[in-house]
């Protein structure tokens, strides 16, 4: 399938693709650069690209002034907690649908997917009201539950497609050799399922980290994660480009790195197997 390509054509492709890639990436790069500028140089005209007075001051200011650490902890707890809880509930479900399918399995999968299509704003007030009644408003537990529920269909679907790829012949062979259900799960299936489970966890941490409807509407000062923390910069007092950039860089860096690791799983997780 390898086609002989002239170096000239390869060079043109490379130049074109790199320029477009850098253009698309530029806002992120610019944010990272600006986060190291003194506030005055962040708005300099003409803009300063590399030759400014590099400083870490903005990072310290953001930490001190706005309790950055608490928001960061909330983000970690909410995205990690909801993913973990979702996995615990989804693994058995996806497992049974992949290995003990019945006539209704397909309908159940489709129905689960349909719950994901429900527009959040359509159920905003009921959830808000239930949160008040149950004392969950502005609590991390409440957000863990809601975000787990909105991502549960994606988790189940992803796990299902991974489990489906495990050849059942191996299971039958293990059974023939007299393996019990327990050892079958523990020693045969689990090792083969771990990569799939890991990718599912990764993608869901990303989705939960960036969720910005429920996190903005159901939290205030106490349980707000980084999405809410950044949103608080939308009503500026004075000039703040460098500080906004520092806060933004800290909010996106960890997830960007995770995201780069999970590019392949992104397609599987977000198209529900419709594109392979």
């Amino acid at each position: 399938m390898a086609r002989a390509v002239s170096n000239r054509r390869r060079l043109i492709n490379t130049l074109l693709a790199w320029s477009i890639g850098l253009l698309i990436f530029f806002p992120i790069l610019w944010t990272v650069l600006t986060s190291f500028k003194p506030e005055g140089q962040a708005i300099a005209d003409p803009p300063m690209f590399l030759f400014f007075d590099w400083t870490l001051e903005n990072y310290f200011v953001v930490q001190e002034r706005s309790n950055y650490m608490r928001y960061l902890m909330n983000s970690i707890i909410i995205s990690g907690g909801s993913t973990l809880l979702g996995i615990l509930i989804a693994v058995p479900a996806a497992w049974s649908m992949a290995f003990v399918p019945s006539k209704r399995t397909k309908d159940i999968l489709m129905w689960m997917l349909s719950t994901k299509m429900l527009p959040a704003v359509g159920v905003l007030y009921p959830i808000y009201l239930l949160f008040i009644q149950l004392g969950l408003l502005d609590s991390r537990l409440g957000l863990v539950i809601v975000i787990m529920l909105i991502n549960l269909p994606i988790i189940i679907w992803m796990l299902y497609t991974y489990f489906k790829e495990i050849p059942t012949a191996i299971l039958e062979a293990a059974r023939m050799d007299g393996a019990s259900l327990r050892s079958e799960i523990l020693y045969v299936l689990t090792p083969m399922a771990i990569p799939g489970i890991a990718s599912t966890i990764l993608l869901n941490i990303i989705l939960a980290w960036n969720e910005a409807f429920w996190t903005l509407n159901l939290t205030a000062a106490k349980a707000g994660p980084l999405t809410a923390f950044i949103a608080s910069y939308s009503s500026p007092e004075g000039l703040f480009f460098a500080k906004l950039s520092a806060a933004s860089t800290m909010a996106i860096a960890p997830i960007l790195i995770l995201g780069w690791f999970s590019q392949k799983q992104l397609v599987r997780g977000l198209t529900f197997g419709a594109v392979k």
Partner: protein
Amino acid sequence: MATQHSRSAARMMMAPAVILLLGWMLVPLCMTLYFSFKKYLPLRGGDLGWVGFDNYTRFVSSSSFWPSIYATLVIVGGVLAITVVFGILLAILLDQPMWGQGVVRMLVIAPFFVMPTVSSLVWKNMFMDPNYGLFAHLWRFFGAEPIQWMSQASLPSIIMIVSWQWLPFATLILLTAIQSLDSEQLEASEMDGAPIISRFWYIILPHLSRAITVVILIQTIFLLSIFAEIFVTTGGAFGTKTLSYLIFQRVLESQNVGLGSAGGVYAIILANIVAIFLMRIVGKNLDN
């Protein structure tokens, strides 16, 4: 292979997920339906009784309804057009042989991982600020008067921000689809002397049609409910109040729950119309 025993075990394993999702779907949905037939103002008298379909007619006859439909259509349509067209071009480009393909791919998909509040505020302030934004510098450099993006060009600004966020998604999915294209077919047509345009039109595009449909449907479902991008930029001002933002304002800002719930029912119906088409494609794929 499946025994009676393993079947009932399977049902037990599925039960928690099914029950949770059923509750998550039915309880709020029934409450929204219930409120939509009531005059319910939590801060001004609470539950003021049943009003039939009053909220439904009032929601569509309010002066902000049609502008919100317009804003929704323009944003969804604009973002879809930009992301699909550029997504196809970018996917074809990224599929070509080049140096550093992996790195370019990472650069292109990066915006997808940026949380919506960050991308909106970075664009709004550092690029679109009429005094200090990069665009203002650029405009002044060419001797032009900087644009007041968020007020004079509010819808294009939002479309630009959201397209930047979703272009990676479209590109990545279309790239995955292109890579499954049989390269022999392309080579054969190349040898037969088919020009690039007709190769694109008769081979690449038909091959991509299903992936394009999936991109359009999935994006539509997400784009119909964009929230943070409007919340932190214009707050619904300057004609950017979409249907979901209008409902949000009715429910939480003016606390007119009955009216907002009726709007919510409309939004649910709208999303379901799109969802039906998506589900059909997904369902067909599940059979194979």
